[in-house]
């Protein structure tokens, strides 16, 4: 394809992306240097780095950052392991496969706010899990008692919500597994564990990378589940970067500070993702 034709084809998409992604990002950077609230929304006051200093010395910001890291460190590895286990089982069955997949996908496909609310309803005062656990422990259980139990709910929900993604990707990967090495390994008397370690896992390696990349990006911007599970109640002290950012912008109405925080978040996510992006870039330049 010629250069000018290419330009015509990609122009609408690139214009939208520049206009609605590059421009807002530039605006965020500029607004981050200004004191901006709803009272002076038309004439922001330039304050230099003050917003950034304020964010970096804000203990609630670091608390949210810590929680975001815990959330990522717990949900990302756990959901990959669980997803792999379910994918391996799915690979073994032929009947009812579509039925299992449909049910297992539901938590991931459903509207996150709705899914989280449904999840929460089972842990409410009249909820099913509350009842079962109360019977088991023979005492009253309240999942919305304090930060610890709510943290547990948020992490549990994170795994419940994201596991289907790893499951389906790894399941698709298992369908493309070449049969010959596996048969050869079996003939040579390799145990299940050995086949797993030397044939199946190496085949899925690039997928683990792909899943980790996507799920880290998503764990970094968890918002909906915090909004619903904490009932927007700050007493639990459970919040992610995104959620605190939202609070600063809309509850405290500090738009300048919120933008500074967004910019810092963007820098942070890129530091985390540079190795992943580099690998993807190398793969793309190799194949084309």
């Amino acid at each position, binding site marked *: 394809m010629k250069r000018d034709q290419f330009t015509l084809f990609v122009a609408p998409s690139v214009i939208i992306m520049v206009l609605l992604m590059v421009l807002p990002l530039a605006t965020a950077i500029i607004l981050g240097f200004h004191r901006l609230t709803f009272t002076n929304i038309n004439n922001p006051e330039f304050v230099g780095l003050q917003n950034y200093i304020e964010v970096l010395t804000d203990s609630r910001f670091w608390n949210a950052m810590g929680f975001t890291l815990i959330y990522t460190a717990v949900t990302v590895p756990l959901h990959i392991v669980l997803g792999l286990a379910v994918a391996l*089982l799915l690979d073994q069955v032929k009947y009812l496969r579509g039925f*299992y997949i449909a049910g297992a*996908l539901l938590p991931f496909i459903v509207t*996150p706010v709705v899914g989280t609310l449904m999840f929460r309803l089972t842990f409410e005062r009249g909820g099913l899990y509350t*009842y079962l656990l109360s019977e088991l422990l023979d005492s009253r259980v309240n999942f919305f008692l304090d930060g610890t139990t709510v943290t547990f709910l948020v992490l549990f929900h994170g795994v419940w919500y994201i596991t289907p993604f790893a499951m389906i990707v790894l399941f698709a990967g298992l369908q493309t597994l070449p*049969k010959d090495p596996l048969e050869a390994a079996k003939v040579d008397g390799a145990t299940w564990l050995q086949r797993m370690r030397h044939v199946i896992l190496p085949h899925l390696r690039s997928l683990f990378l*792909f899943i980790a990349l996507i799920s880290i990006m998503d764990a970094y911007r968890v918002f909906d589940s915090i909004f619903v599970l904490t009932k*927007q109640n700050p007493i639990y002290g459970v919040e992610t970067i995104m959620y605190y950012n939202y609070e600063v912008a809309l509850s405290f109405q500090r738009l300048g500070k919120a933008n500074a925080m967004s910019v810092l978040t963007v820098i942070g996510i890129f530091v985390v993702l540079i190795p992943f992006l580099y690998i993807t870039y190398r793969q793309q330049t190799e194949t084309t």
Partner: protein
Amino acid sequence: MEAQRKNPVAMIAINAVLILWLVYSVTPFLWTMLNSLKTPREANSRIPVFPFDPTGDNYAELWLNNVPDNLPVLGFILLLIIIGLIGVGLLAPRFPIPRVATYSGIVAVGGIVVLVIPSLVNTAEFYDYFINSVIVTVGTVVISITIGCLAGYGLARYRGIIGVVILFAALAFRALPRMAFVLPYYYLGQAVGLYDTHLLLILTLVAVNQPFTVWMLRSFFMDIPHEVEEAAMIDGCTRLQAFTRVIIPIMWPGIITTALFTLLLAYNEFLLARILMQSNWTLPVALSSYTGGEDASQLTLAAAGSVSITLPIVFVIIFFQKYLVKGLAFGAVKG
């Protein structure tokens, strides 16, 4: 591995674990469905009330301001129309007219039905939010897929370095947190007077979704051999004609897959809609207003709302599972 005999005990164990996994996945959905049919008092009881008399009051309160006498008749007619439209949609590939025409027709008829309903029954606010969701979702899918197809095709066929740069930049955008865009949109939207309009939310969703759309459509276009449009161009088509008349008709599986994910993204979006819409709420924002307090009567309403919002998605999973799995796995096959 189909040739070998399977140990029946192992198969039973595997199926048992998978059923357990299924139960774990869908328990919240079933529990909420039960709650949506209970009275607030029953739903809030510490010991689950079972069996109970199912009631439709929560749904009626959510959707209607007052309940007309002929509701069962109207509901039945609506159900018939929905089944009819789904049937036509599934049969679209077999009709002698272009699929775009069939799908546009379905959207048009559906739109008319949605607009006529409020003149027949006294609908509540939730119905208006439902209409907002429909407008935003349809708008986002149409714009996003149109420009995404053009860009995806260009990127699949162009070999220059700029193509790689654009793709890479798009991937970087995919990584950015929504918050980095939404506050400037909020600020700029108020400056140009687009705040609280469908248009701003649609354009925002298109932009946020564009990196994903472009990557996915490009990978589908890459699967179509060059010879297809080269033959058409030798026969006298221009590049654009070859694209619209030859490439697009064989791209339908890819377009449907990408459109499904765009649809889910637009329908499910909460944060952008919450910040950019003040009165024109979409369904997730409307539902979130029931999620704050401890008021027991709100819980059953929230449950009814949750089930209402989830039903279309259950339809999507049932009818389009093949495309969904393919779309989710496309990273798997492409590596």
